[in-house]
């Protein structure tokens, strides 16, 4: 059903979106690593005035096991106001939830009971494989002309990975997005500069390279992805590939500036094989060509081999492992999660080429095991991993699982499950952990928690066509 006036959660510009009301609920992907129980979407109360604040208040089990829920997204968002293909009267009500391991995609309806989303459609892996030629669906973005889904693997092959399009209304798989992919083979994240007709994509690895964990031979052999691709969004063709250098393994999350007049963005690189450091780079247009420049370097932290999991013992250090980054809607603060060292860093990126660190919070970590202030006796495993920022930039949510097989390598004694909320000083920078907000452990019923989506939208769900 369509509405008579635009969905109130759509905003024409990031300037308007910053004034959006605070989210009441957060949706969190939760998965069972053993693939014995069904994965679920957990619903967490984020209303500070509520008696259930900071607790799991709703739960939707999925009908199968072994999906490994990872990233998910909304069926529609502010891009629906884009004038080239406007459809402002659709509702933001469905969560498109892919299983990274099973290649199934679920559609959940949040409208009737926002605390207990209802499963309304299931797209089998065969549909994605036969209609689009892809598997291992990963990132969801609500586009102006359809729902875009990146996928790491080919339908019945290792690759290439790429992007599939789902119909806005029926959620049927319409096909592969690419017209001409050039030599692009690896896929992972993607996003765009809508008003510039530019799509950007990043690289992880094919299914066999990732599903059993990081393969040290492949890593040392510099075989994982290390390039960023720039596409013509309208023609759907690859225009330019920038190689960061093969020591920079796995450029993952892409965060373009929200302001459509700007044409830069940030990408996090998991690790350098030369010194186990992590880095953040900025892409920008220079004389028509895209360039990618390293702007943040985060060194590995030395540690006693005895404190390290077997995978890291040969190195005597903990790599930061930057596995998620997120940019506030006003393009001012970049949050960088160092999942290995258990740290969330905040940078003022008003000048994207000269980030200034303005805050740091430690939770968990391979050797630190830093507890949350509300449970000071519990040594936490995992680290801040998926980051989500409220539209007004005042609240940041983090969860602690990265990817089942990687969790097991770096936190072999169990990664647990926890979610934390951080309050932000949006004037001067700086972060404080909210002691009232710490759903963890049994609250998540033995499942691990990954991406968070905020009711009404957040900093990594919406894109805007107006400044």
């Amino acid at each position, binding site marked *: 059903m369509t509405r008579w006036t635009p969905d109130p959660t759509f905003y024409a510009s990031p300037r308007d979106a910053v004034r959006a009301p605070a989210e009441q609920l957060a949706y969190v992907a939760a998965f069972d690593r053993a693939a014995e129980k069904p994965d679920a979407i957990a619903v967490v109360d984020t209303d500070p005035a509520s008696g259930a604040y900071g607790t799991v208040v709703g739960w939707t089990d999925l009908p199968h096991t072994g999906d490994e829920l990872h990233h998910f997204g909304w069926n529609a968002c502010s891009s629906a106001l884009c004038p080239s293909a406007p459809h402002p009267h659709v509702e933001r009500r469905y969560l498109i939830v892919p299983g990274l391991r099973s290649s199934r995609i679920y559609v959940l309806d949040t409208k009737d009971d926002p605390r207990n989303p209802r499963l309304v459609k299931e797209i089998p892996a065969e549909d994605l494989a036969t209609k689009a030629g892809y598997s291992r669906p990963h990132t969801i973005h609500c586009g102006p002309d359809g729902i875009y889904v990146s996928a790491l693997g080919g339908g019945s092959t290792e690759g290439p990975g790429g992007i599939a399009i789902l119909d*806005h209304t029926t959620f049927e798989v319409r096909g592969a997005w690419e017209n001409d992919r050039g030599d692009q083979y690896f896929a992972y994240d993607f996003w765009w500069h809508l008003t510039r007709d530019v799509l950007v994509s990043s690289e992880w690895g094919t299914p066999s390279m990732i599903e059993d964990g990081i393969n040290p031979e492949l890593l040392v052999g510099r075989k994982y992805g290390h390039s960023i691709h720039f596409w013509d969004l309208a023609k759907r063709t690859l225009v330019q590939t920038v190689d960061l250098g093969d020591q920079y393994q796995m450029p993952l999350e892409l965060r373009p500036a929200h302001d459509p007049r700007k044409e830069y963005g940030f990408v996090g690189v998991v690790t350098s094989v030369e010194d186990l450091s992590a880095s953040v780079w900025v892409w920008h247009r220079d004389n028509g060509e895209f360039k990618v420049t390293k702007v943040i370097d985060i060194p590995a932290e030395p540690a006693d081999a005895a404190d390290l999991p077997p995978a890291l013992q040969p190195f005597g250090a903990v790599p930061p492992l930057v596995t998620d980054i997120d940019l506030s809607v006003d393009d001012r603060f970049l949050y960088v999660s160092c999942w290995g060292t258990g740290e969330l860093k905040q940078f003022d990126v008003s000048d994207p080429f000269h980030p200034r660190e303005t805050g740091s919070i430690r939770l968990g970590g391979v050797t630190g095991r830093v507890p949350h202030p509300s449970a000071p006796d519990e040594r936490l495993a995992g680290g801040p991993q998926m980051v989500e920022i409220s539209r007004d930039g005042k609240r940041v949510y983090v969860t602690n699982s990265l990817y089942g097989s990687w969790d097991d390598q770096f936190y072999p004694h169990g990664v647990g499950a926890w979610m934390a909320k951080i309050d932000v000083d949006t004037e001067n920078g700086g972060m404080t952990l909210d002691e009232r907000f710490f759903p963890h452990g049994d609250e998540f019923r033995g499942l691990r928690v990954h991406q968070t989506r905020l009711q009404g939208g957040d900093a990594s769900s919406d894109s805007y066509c107006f400044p």
Partner: protein
Amino acid sequence: MTAGQLAALAALGAFHGLNPAMGWLFAVARGMQEGSRTVLLRSLPPIAAGHLASVAIVAAVVSATRSAVAGNVVAITGGVLLVGFGLWRLLSERHFRWAGMRLSRAQLAGWSFLMSSAHGAGLMLLPVLATTPMATGPHMAHTMAAAPGGALQGLLAAGVHTVAMFAVMGGCAVLVYEFVGLNVLRRAWFNVDKLWAGVLVAAGALTIALTA
């Protein structure tokens, strides 16, 4: 054409001009992207041209057919079938895939043509066109030779319609760009598509009522 019919054509043009999806919002986006009112203003003529082309084709076909073929019902049915087929072709893909934002002026006109056609803009003129007296003398009514005259009348109707559309679209674009701001969309962007479907049905019914 009577004054009432001209007024009706202009009113329908104003209605199309008001709809953000028909073009003024695109003009505003282009202006804002470049921070330039000139860019906004320069975007308006191609959008109007695309709209004119879309409406004119329907209007000319309908008017010419009416002039040449005896019996209004036949003409209308033929026109409706033709446009209905086109609409179905366009709407079956829903949001058409040519979704770029950086368009040349020619591409912008093409975009506007597709947008107007997909929404059946020309169809809406049917009640007016179908009730306009034929521009033909009594001695040459309903012959093939009368078709060009009828087509010209259709083009005139499309022209009047588009001038009104252009004026209202330009007014909306400048008003929003300079004074009101885009936040107004959140309240004022009425679901014209829904209304549109209703108006199309009403237009069809009215046409039949007036000409049967």
